[in-house]
């Protein structure tokens, strides 16, 4: 047998006596017919024999006697040395123990803190159809680059060291743990509206602003039109580390890459007394609102009745659109709560359980003691 041998590794083990008796005998039988293993054994033997020929240090008897005397003298001195005081040893021990504790504490701190700091904030993002954005997260900082569209973002409470930053075409917006809406169009930030928490808005050439819950930028003047978000069901989309989406989506994310899931559109709550949504041609409106744009807003009763009629007729897609239009047009109406719940049911009946659950969750968030709470909870199960 020549060339490579799968048992060649056994030569060293057999040579060192690491193999069992049976394995050793088996290997020896094999080695008699295997050149490769024979060579291995010879190489080990050669190494050993050459190693034994490497010269060694020796001493003359006289040198040995001198060293012996020196060792015994030193050992005698060692034996005669007074024992170290116990209290000194104890003090040294205490100092050593304190140092060990300090090191353990520091290492525990070092072990735990980077994990916390390294975890990027978690957030949920709803976008308009055609919105483009990308996500860049590094350690404890999540950074979203918003290019165009509107984005409703809900950021979980930030822990120490975590940062959530939106890069806008004309500045940046840093989140302090909140839910808010931001709209970007034509390389310009169109509006920011904070629902919960606080955000710091830093636009180029403008003083930094701290927006609290209920605040909006630019400030909403009386009669100002609040552009509606899109409401169409979102197709699946994905965002890579530096990827982009161009589809409406509801995304729950922990750092990049973001996990994008189809979901409902979370509606911004318009202030009381706000006017109906603008037509798509109005500045500031999303490019493709999926709700029907009505030239004349029907009265609340009619709008709700139309939506209910479509719902009863089994046209759940139309019903959902009409409920959305109703909610936008009449945000202060008492039936908005029902409309939200019925949207969830409509989605469920269209077979989109995930979106139905998301709308139900939205319902429960907005109406934690709502009349449809039990039904909404059932939808979540």
């Amino acid at each position, binding site marked *: 047998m020549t060339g490579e041998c799968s048992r060649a590794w056994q030569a060293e083990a057999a040579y060192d006596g690491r193999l069992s008796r049976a394995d050793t005998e088996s290997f020896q039988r094999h080695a008699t017919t295997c050149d490769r293993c024979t060579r291995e054994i010879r190489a080990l033997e050669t190494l050993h024999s050459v190693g034994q020929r490497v010269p060694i240090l020796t001493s003359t008897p006289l040198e040995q006697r001198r060293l*012996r005397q020196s060792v015994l003298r030193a050992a005698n001195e060692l034996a005669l040395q007074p024992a170290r005081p116990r209290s000194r040893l104890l003090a040294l021990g205490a100092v050593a123990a304190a140092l060990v504790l300090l090191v353990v504490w520091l290492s525990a701190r070092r072990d735990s803190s980077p994990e916390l700091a390294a975890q990027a904030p978690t957030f949920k993002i709803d976008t308009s159809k055609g919105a483009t954005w990308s996500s860049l997260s590094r350690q404890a900082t999540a950074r979203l680059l918003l290019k165009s569209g509107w984005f409703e973002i809900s950021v979980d409470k930030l822990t120490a060291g975590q940062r959530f930053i939106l890069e806008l075409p004309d500045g940046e917006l840093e989140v302090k743990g909140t839910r808010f809406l931001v709209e970007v169009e034509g390389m310009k930030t169109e509006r920011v509206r904070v629902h919960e928490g606080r955000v710091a808005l830093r636009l180029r050439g403008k003083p930094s602003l701290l927006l609290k819950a209920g605040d909006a930028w630019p400030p909403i003047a009386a009669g100002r039109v609040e552009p509606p978000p899109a409401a169409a069901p979102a197709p699946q989309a994905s965002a890579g580390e530096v990827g982009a989406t161009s589809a409406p989506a509801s995304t729950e994310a922990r750092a990049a890459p973001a996990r994008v899931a189809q979901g409902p559109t979370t509606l911004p709550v318009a202030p009381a007394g706000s006017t109906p949504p603008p037509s798509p041609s109005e500045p500031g409106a999303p490019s493709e609102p999926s709700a029907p744009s009505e030239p004349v807003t029907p009265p609340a009763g009619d709008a709700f009745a139309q939506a209910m009629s479509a719902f009863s007729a089994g046209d759940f897609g139309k019903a959902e659109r009409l409920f959305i239009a109703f909610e936008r047009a009449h945000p202060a109406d008492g039936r908005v709560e029902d409309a939200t719940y019925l949207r969830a049911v409509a989605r469920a009946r269209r077979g989109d359980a995930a979106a139905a659950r998301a709308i139900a969750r939205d319902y429960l968030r907005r109406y934690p003691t709502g009349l449809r709470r039990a039904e909404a909870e059932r939808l979540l199960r």
Partner: protein
Amino acid sequence: MTALPVPTVHDAPHDAELVAAVSRGDLEALGKLFERHEPLLRRFFGRLGIAPGDVDDVVQAVFLEVVRAADRYEASYSVKSWLCGIATIMARRHRRSLARWAARMAAWAGVETQTDVATPYDAIEHDQAAQILRGAIAGLSAKKREVFVLVTLEGLSGEETARALGIPLKTVWTRLHYARRELRAALEQST
């Protein structure tokens, strides 16, 4: 009448007994241990690459450590491997010692050091393979060299080596394997 066994009063005491006596402060026992094991330690330090001029100091340090540690000696393993363990620690300390650093500084400054003095190695100039192997052993990392010297050259078992060095048995085999591989390559290159 059965002959009574004659007590062997002149039998040399076992190494372990000598260590036990040393632990009780018997310097005579220490002297006997020295006589038995000094050649081993001198050889071992030479193989570990300690300069000949420093070997006496390190050997003395080993025996002083024997005096300090004798009461902790466990008779379950050989005095030879125990001494090799202490010697390995002393060799490592020596490598890190200020004396060595000073010697290097002296070498940089152009002062002639003991490394230029003739050594016993010079006596076998004719054995080229041994010379090459000596150079290759010197080129091994300290960890691989310690294992190779203890197992292959000093004949300790894997278990004894593991105990002497305070490392797992598998680590001994791993280091030995890589040491052999490097040394074989060095020898094969030369032929």
